[in-house]
């Protein structure tokens, strides 16, 4: 039985967001051949001819050829162009195991109850490198497919029986609820991720801000040891279960604010175990970003217990704390009335009245802080390991583009001041991708920042451009093309830029539209251009080879 659920990405096919349990991809013939080579183990694969459409609503009539997995490589795809339907095992299992039922009111976004709707919605691949693959994300797989009990195919094991209609079953009760929450993870990463997370030590949670109520979608084994709650019990509730009467409101508000701002946060907070006994933990909150588009996929909350030694050290004065408590209580009360689920993240609601006598907050020691951070890092690493299989890359930091190192913030700041139209390309990465484009460049050429980052500079070339091999610093007159196809006479200056190690780190390409009228305060255009080069040189000269500010060498 194939347990793995992974979708390989091949050259010209990429699944960016596997939020839905299946994706419909349209591939061209050429792509299809390479597709077969790269997909090794897929739960379910269906390939159809281009003129046909996946008839999701009626799986009984198999008009299309479908292929089983694993062992896809030896299947022939003489269908050539067409569509490929790929599903994930976990999604299949969800439906297979659920008892037969009608449409229920409990729905989750990918499984709407409307049977009439056809899969619709085209999502163009984000990356400009893959223009061909189009991802159809069906809005509503029809739930009218009912599982036929006793269907011999159902009984047999393996991916074969997975009639895609099965997925569309609604689940009910705890099982459904749990699986829905688990799918928040497994829809994005592979099935193995749950087991990998189970192996990590420490007590931590993963919450999904996209679901209503910002529920906990995963709780680690260590959580039970620390808090006394069984993992099953906390799934689906908000993180408020851990708070209690004496929990510091200010800390809670700080966490809420960090969630709203989508940034990491660390605070010592008083939590309550299942039996009601309070204990101090260092709560380390970190967002997990989608590496490509920077959206937040999950929040990670690590709890490290603070021992008694930290008691009382560095506590703020009681008076200030009291005032803060009072102020925060107002805020908490407001939240009681309007429990906003969509964006407020963790909502800590205190049902009890509480007095002003709160315990003095403890201060976590450095070792505890480090432990929290290292646990968080290992969790993100585990998520990454299992997400790469689905083609999704996550990171603890928001990145500009996948595969391209983000520039340090100080460099971004200095470069942002420079008003000329230029780009920086990375000299060491293959094909010298653009890693920075100034605002003036974007307005000159019409590209947006997301589009241009990662491309090579030849994106500006067009039919009229005389191609010259640009090897060292030089100034050339070119005809360059904007995004909309219009050309402009371009005075281009290219020069290598070195960093503090003395090696070439980037190349700068400064463009100037000779045809447009410019006023440079008395400077000639060439002088204006070179001014950008000099300014970038000074900015980059102070950076070490890794791109950060120069630090004492170890």
């Amino acid at each position: 039985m194939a347990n793995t659920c992974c979708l390989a990405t091949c050259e010209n096919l990429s699944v960016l967001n596997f939020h839905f349990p299946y994706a419909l991809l349209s591939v061209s013939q050429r792509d299809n051949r390479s597709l077969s080579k790269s997909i090794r183990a897929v739960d379910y694969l269906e390939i159809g001819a281009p003129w046909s459409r996946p008839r999701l609503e009626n799986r009984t009539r198999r008009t299309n050829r479908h292929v089983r997995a694993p062992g896809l490589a030896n299947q022939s795809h003489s269908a050539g162009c067409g569509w490929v339907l790929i599903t994930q095992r976990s999604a299949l299992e969800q439906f297979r195991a659920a008892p037969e039922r009608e449409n229920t009111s409990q729905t989750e976004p990918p499984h709407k109850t409307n049977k009439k709707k056809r899969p619709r919605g085209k999502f163009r691949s984000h990356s400009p490198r893959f223009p061909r693959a189009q991802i159809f994300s069906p809005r509503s797989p029809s739930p009218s497919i009912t599982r036929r009990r006793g269907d011999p195919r159902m009984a047999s094991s393996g991916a074969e029986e997975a009639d895609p209609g099965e997925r569309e079953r609604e689940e009910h009760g705890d099982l459904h609820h749990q699986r829905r929450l688990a799918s928040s993870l497994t829809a994005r990463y592979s099935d193995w991720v749950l087991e990998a997370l189970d192996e990590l030590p420490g007590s931590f949670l993963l919450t999904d801000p996209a679901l209503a109520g910002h529920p906990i979608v995963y709780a680690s084994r260590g959580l039970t040891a620390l808090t006394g709650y069984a993992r099953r019990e906390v799934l689906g509730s908000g993180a408020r279960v851990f708070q209690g009467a004496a929990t510091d409101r200010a800390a809670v508000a700080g966490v809420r604010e960090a969630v709203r701002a989508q940034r990491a946060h660390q605070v010592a907070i008083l939590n309550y175990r299942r039996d009601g006994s309070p204990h101090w933990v260092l709560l380390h909150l970190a967002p997990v970003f989608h590496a490509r588009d920077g959206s937040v996929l999950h929040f990670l909350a690590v709890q490290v217990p603070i021992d008694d030694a930290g008691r009382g050290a560095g506590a703020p004065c009681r008076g200030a704390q009291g005032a803060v408590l009072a102020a925060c209580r107002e805020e908490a009360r407001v939240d009681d009335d309007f429990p906003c689920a969509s964006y407020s993240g963790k909502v800590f609601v205190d049902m009890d009245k509480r007095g002003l006598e709160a315990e003095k907050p403890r201060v976590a020691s450095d070792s505890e802080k480090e432990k929290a951070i290292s646990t968080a890092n290992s969790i993100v690493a585990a998520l990454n390991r299992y997400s790469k299989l689905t083609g999704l890359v996550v990171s603890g930091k928001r990145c500009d583009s996948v595969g391209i190192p983000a520039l340090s913030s100080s460099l971004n700041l200095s470069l942002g001041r420079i008003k000329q139209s230029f780009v920086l390309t990375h000299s060491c990465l293959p094909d010298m991708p653009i890693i920075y484009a100034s605002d003036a460049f974007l307005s000159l050429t019409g590209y947006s920042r997301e589009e241009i980052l990662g491309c090579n500079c030849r994106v500006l070339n067009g039919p009229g451009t005389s191609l010259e091999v640009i090897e060292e610093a030089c100034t050339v007159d070119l005809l360059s093309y904007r995004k909309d196809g219009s050309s402009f006479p371009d005075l281009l200056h290219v020069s290598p830029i070195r960093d503090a190690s003395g090696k070439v780190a980037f190349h700068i390409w400064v463009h100037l539209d000779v045809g447009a009228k410019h006023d440079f305060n008395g400077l000639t255009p060439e002088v204006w251009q070179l001014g950008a080069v000099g300014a970038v040189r000074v900015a980059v000269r102070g950076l070490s080879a890794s791109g950060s500010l120069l630090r004492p060498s170890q």
Partner: protein
Amino acid sequence: MVSATKVEGEYSFLSKNSHLDQSEGVKTHLYHFGAEHGNDDLKSTACPEQGPSLLDTILLSQWDNFAWKGHLDYDVTACQLKVIEGGINFVGQLNNKWNSFSLKEYDKLFESFRCSKPNSMKSYEGLLLCVAQGENDRPEVAPSASPPKDGLLLIANAYPVEYGHIFLVPAAVNQLSCYWDKRMFGLATKIASEVNNAAFRVFFDSRTHVVSDHMFFQACYFPNPLPVESASTVVLYEYGGNARSDIIVSETVGYPLKAIVFTSNNLKALVNVVSEICFSLHDNTTAYSLLISNNGTKVFLFPQVKNLVTGCSLSTWECGGYFIYHTKFEFDNASETEISKRMASVSLQDSAFEDLKHLCCAIAHDLVK
């Protein structure tokens, strides 16, 4: 466009100067300070939205052009930098082509430039820019003009210590001035303020930066803060009465070389106070270095003793904490203790330094009132 006019009588170098006029004359970009900034206020902080200033852009551009044409002896940006471990974070550069003797070449160069000997064509290439006071409100640039008499010439240094290393040389010399020209110092500070780039620093060294009794400055772009700028300071004297002529005199704490820091937003106050102090130092035959940083609002004074035993002295950037090593061995083994020892050996004695501090405060107090 300003043309140089002949001034009869006072200046003995005249005949050579007129020779300059009769030949094609040196033409270069001429940058005029705007009159609105011609007063005493120094811009204290750079506005991030405005972008690099006009002077900054043209200076960098001219320097890059000079470098690109290959007139530089070596590419200074290819020299490796490192931060030396220790609390003070001294910066070391591995550069086997720079040496301090190269400065002596420029002494001759300036002489010949002023005398406009025909074989000094190289200096014309290195002449990047001329800066002078302008009449209009906003600064402006004339692409090709003869340097006015009261202007300051910016000449590229073919042996740079860092990117953008230039000399600031007066276009014409007032023979009457002694070694210290207050007006020149004011101009140099003004330039630092106009460039408005935190990386731009101006130096003066009393021993080497005086050529046949005429002073000149050096400047360059250090991308990271110099260690002395990050050192903590203790205020010695602070005048807060009149907001416009505020000057703060402080001394560095924890830095191996004793230094006095003058901070002010008022150009005139700064120039007056520092000039007075430099006069006194000269009378005392104390060697010193000046570092103008933070867009012209901070002046570091590094008094040094002439170490007759070892004969070693520190150049201004070394006083600031930026060291150049010629060999890989020295570069790899650079250590903060060794540097601190060197600095301490040229530093003033405690008693002498106390006297100097008192003197500074007294002068500041007298002049600022």
